[in-house]
């Protein structure tokens, strides 16, 4: 059945541009059998309505994308409006990467607007965006995770370098550095504004490899092929990851990754356990580190580049069907409901005047 879908792209995030690529691809795929519009969230935090047939280059010219500003309304018939007319969408596909589109902020807004959307809910988005909270959650549940310290000049680091330094929040490789010693870590953190919200360090494992796997839960748990990206230098630089090969999908990779059965089995069992703690909604991409026979869960990307559609080469489903699954998942979920039970006015009636409470 044809649906009326809005794809949300952009957002004030360092991955704004990559989100445009993910969103335009998704809009094109979904247009096959649906009415698709694009809601463009600009770098300066404004919202615009766009057609689904745009090209990425169109976003280099403001006049092509900033023509139709959207307004938000809350009290009567809440939602998105263009020229006083409500935009009636059945569902929103969230194609934002990083920043407020992936950290729970957008999810909160959509909850308050009482609309249905794909991808992580508020809590999963927040946990996965905060590398320290994610680490402690994994550790508490007995999952293998590399020890992390919060970077703080007042407290000594608990292990020896070299370190990988990462901003505490944010999922891209911006601000991720291999650093030889802790004094250098402190100097970098103090001299850059990439770490103002905090930073974490973990041990740098020189010979470790990244292993990625896509996960979706609708209509039933499905794991993608396992991918091993190929890296040239110490770490993926931002340009290497995104810019030099026309987006994440164009990077060099081993797919499926050549792994022994033991490791593959372990990865699958970890995915299942993590999925029971932080349930995947939409398509998540789990990033593992494999160091010899040791496996560590590194992070979960709740809205991965290209929605990680290219990873599912192992099952007989097209990209359209994969996206359609996560759309159906969003439609099948109930809207967030908040209860007011317990606030029946009794407390207000029995209260004395406010001034008397200030005592």
């Amino acid at each position: 059945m044809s649906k009326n879908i809005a794809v949300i792209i952009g957002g004030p995030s360092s991955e704004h541009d990559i989100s445009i690529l993910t969103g335009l691809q998704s809009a094109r795929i979904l247009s096959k059998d649906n009415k698709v519009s694009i809601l463009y969230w600009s770098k300066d935090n404004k919202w615009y309505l766009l057609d689904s047939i745009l090209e990425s280059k169109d976003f280099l010219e403001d006049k092509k994308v900033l023509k139709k500003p959207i307004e938000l309304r809350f009290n009567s018939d809440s939602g998105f409006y263009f020229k006083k007319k409500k935009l009636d969408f059945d569902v929103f596909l969230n194609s934002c990467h990083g920043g407020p589109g992936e950290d729970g902020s957008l999810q909160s807004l959509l909850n308050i607007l009482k609309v249905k959307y794909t991808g992580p809910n508020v809590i999963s988005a927040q946990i996965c965006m905060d590398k320290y909270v994610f680490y402690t959650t994994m550790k508490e549940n007995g999952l293998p995770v590399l020890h992390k310290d919060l970077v703080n000049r007042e407290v000594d680091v608990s292990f020896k370098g070299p370190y990988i330094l990462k901003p505490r929040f944010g999922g891209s490789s911006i601000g991720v550095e291999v650093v030889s010693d802790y004094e250098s870590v402190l100097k970098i953190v103090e001299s850059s504004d990439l770490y103002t919200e905090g930073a974490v360090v973990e041990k740098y494992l020189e010979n470790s490899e990244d292993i990625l796997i896509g996960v979706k839960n609708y209509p039933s748990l499905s794991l993608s092929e396992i991918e091993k990206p190929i890296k040239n230098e110490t770490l993926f630089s931002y340009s290497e990851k995104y810019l030099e090969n026309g987006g994440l999908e164009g990077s060099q990779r081993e797919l499926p990754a050549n792994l022994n059965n033991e490791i593959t089995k372990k990865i699958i069992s970890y995915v299942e356990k993590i999925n029971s703690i932080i349930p995947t909604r939409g398509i998540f991409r789990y990033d593992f580190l494999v160091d010899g026979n040791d496996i560590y869960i590194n992070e979960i990307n709740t809205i991965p580049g290209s929605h990680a559609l290219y990873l599912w080469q192992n099952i007989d489903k097209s990209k359209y069907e994969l996206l359609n699954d996560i759309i159906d998942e969003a439609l099948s979920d109930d809207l967030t409901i908040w209860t007011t039970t317990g606030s029946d006015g009794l407390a207000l009636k029995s209260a004395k005047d406010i001034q008397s409470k200030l005592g």
Partner: protein
Amino acid sequence: MALKVLNDGKTFAEVNSDNPTVCFLHGWGRSSNDFNLISSKFDSISIDLPGFGKSQEPENSMNPKEYADYLTQLIPDTVEVLVGHSFGGKIAVHMSFIKKYKNLVLIGAPLIRKNPKNNQNFQFKLYKFLNNLNLISEKSIERYKNKYGSEDYKNAHGIMRDTLVKTVNDDLSQLLEFVNTKVHLIWGENDNVIPLAIGKEANTKFKESRITVIKNEGHNMLRSRSEEIIRILKEI
């Protein structure tokens, strides 16, 4: 390679050894990252020059000789080979006068300044003339520079803009014959920033030097031709 803050507490470098033998110096507006594919193949230190990459800006503008003085203090004594690209090459030449190194490798470096006086066009000379007569303001001169200056000039601000001017004005041509270090020049055949002719002319001035021309390459080839540059460095 891992980032490390050096002894001054404000200059960073990519290092992979406590006793590096090769030191890499990047070009104007670039960073140690330029050498990533090359530096990891040697016991090396690849500097983020003051004012670039992660390193803090110097407190006052510096000419290449002052960069050389500063870096000589900062890098380990174990360094035997200096590899400088463009601006970094200029610094490397100055460093070779302060301390003895085994080899200098200079890639697309502005070793000879061509026609410095004719660089300014007529309109700019006129502006300067009128400015001297107090007929137009410093601001107009500044606007002109911002509009017609080189990309590097437009992108540089404050201390780094003054540093750039000092760098461009620093002419090494009279010094090259006094360099007592073996020099290996590497040039992109189609370098349109520092033309090959400059490399060839410089090659005739050094006491002991040779030049390798890399076909079909321009000024920036540290990534695209990393294999060849590694091979040349390994031969040294």
